[in-house]
């Protein structure tokens, strides 16, 4: 069981054009920087990307958008990205907007082998168009399908060679859900350790879900909205 690969290039080498990818992260927080760079370098296209956001113009998935590698984005929020806006308005880029909790829960459904789930979000809105509505206990729910993706690409804080993953702070976000939902899951980690180093009580994603893992390099971790308070009082 050799899950450890040499780096991002090897990890993504068999991802073909036209693939459906899940990409972890919320905004620029916890995104798989190394794999995104490798995907840009590899130059495959016609990708469908399931990711809560689409990066900014010059970082994150924005880098793939610049290279016109993305055919379709499935996201909850895609602001802060001029190139994205241009491609969307010109019709080059297809966009499916999904409520954030629905996006997360559809990943979880995949991870837990549930084909579809009933969720409250979007009832009575355009999100409900074409979906089954069902009333349980007086509330209306939409039937939302689990996601099918070919590859899930996530970024963890630490991982071991068995594929066990842990995440730091709010960089967790969609990463564990997508890691568990991928047909093939690729994890880049800030620190890769031997089995037995991570406490088995505090594993966020058990290794059974992870197929390839490597220690990433040169994390930039760009901050989107740097907000601070004054030193005072």
């Amino acid at each position, binding site marked *: 069981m050799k899950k450890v690969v040499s780096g991002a290039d090897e990890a993504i080498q068999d991802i073909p054009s036209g693939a459906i990818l899940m990409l972890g992260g*919320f905004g*620029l927080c916890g995104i798989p920087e190394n794999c995104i760079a490798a995907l840009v370098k590899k130059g495959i296209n016609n990708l469908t990307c399931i990711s809560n956001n689409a990066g900014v113009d010059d970082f994150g998935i924005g880098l793939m958008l610049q290279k016109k590698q993305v055919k379709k984005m499935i996201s909850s929020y895609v602001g*802060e990205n001029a190139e994205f806006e241009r491609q969307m308005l010109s019709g080059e880029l297809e966009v499916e907007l999904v*409520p954030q*909790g629905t996006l997360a829960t559809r990943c979880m459904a995949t991870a837990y082998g549930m084909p579809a789930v009933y969720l409250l979000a979007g009832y009575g809105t355009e999100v409900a168009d074409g979906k089954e509505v069902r009333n349980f206990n007086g509330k209306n729910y939409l039937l939302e399908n689990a996601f099918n993706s070919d590859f899930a690409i996530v970024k963890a804080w630490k991982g071991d060679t068995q594929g066990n993953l842990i995440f730091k702070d709010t960089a967790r976000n969609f990463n564990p859900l997508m890691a568990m939902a991928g047909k093939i899951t690729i994890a880049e980690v800030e620190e890769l350790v031997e089995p037995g180093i991570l406490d088995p009580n505090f594993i966020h994603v058990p290794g059974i879900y992870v197929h390839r893992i490597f220690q990433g390099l040169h994390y930039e971790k760009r901050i989107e909205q740097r907000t601070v308070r004054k030193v005072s009082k």
Partner: protein
Amino acid sequence: MYYNLYQKKLQQFMLNKEQIAKRIAQELQDGFYVNLGIGIPTLVANYIPDGLDVVLQSENGLLGMGPFPYEGEEDPDLINAGKQTITTIPGSAFFDSAMSFGMIRAGKVHLTVLGAMEVADNGDIANWKIPGKMVKGMGGAMDLVAAAQNIIVAMQHTNPKGESKLLSKCTLPLTGVGCVKKVVTDLGVFNITENGFECIEYAPGVTIDEIIAKTAGRITIAPTVKEIAI
């Protein structure tokens, strides 16, 4: 100079953003778990009454959000749902996005405060999309309005053109149906009832006539209506 005086007086006639936030903070109760949206709602955190234990949820995966970090202490791995750098308080907990919306959906979050473009007198809300304009997405708004126990909208009573944002029916695409419980605007505080908006408080210097004039949806005035105390 006469103009400046008029401006000053006008400002006294309605709540500013900080005052709207301050009024909403009066809705907090000890032990509440609260989700605050971007904009005015975020300011509510500054006015949590002393002695109340209120825990802030950030839907990207945190309970126990603290204030912004001091300069130099920003951590890119620690942001709120508005993507701002933040801190945590003792007793905080991180979790993934599915659990985050799971606890919202299960009714564990007591109060959600968010902004809106329009609110209808039946509690419908529109706050994510303007046809013809670039659509950025609903983020977590649809989940929050569909599932939170108690939803308060913080917004201006009228849009920049002076048109009411409290309508009989939303004109913009909906975010959620029949979900808003209360609206706090620069002019007053309104419950959503079977009879539409019910004005329960008015801003200092604002007249009931003005509120009625500026509200397009059905509106009643509570018998106990009083001036907002902030």
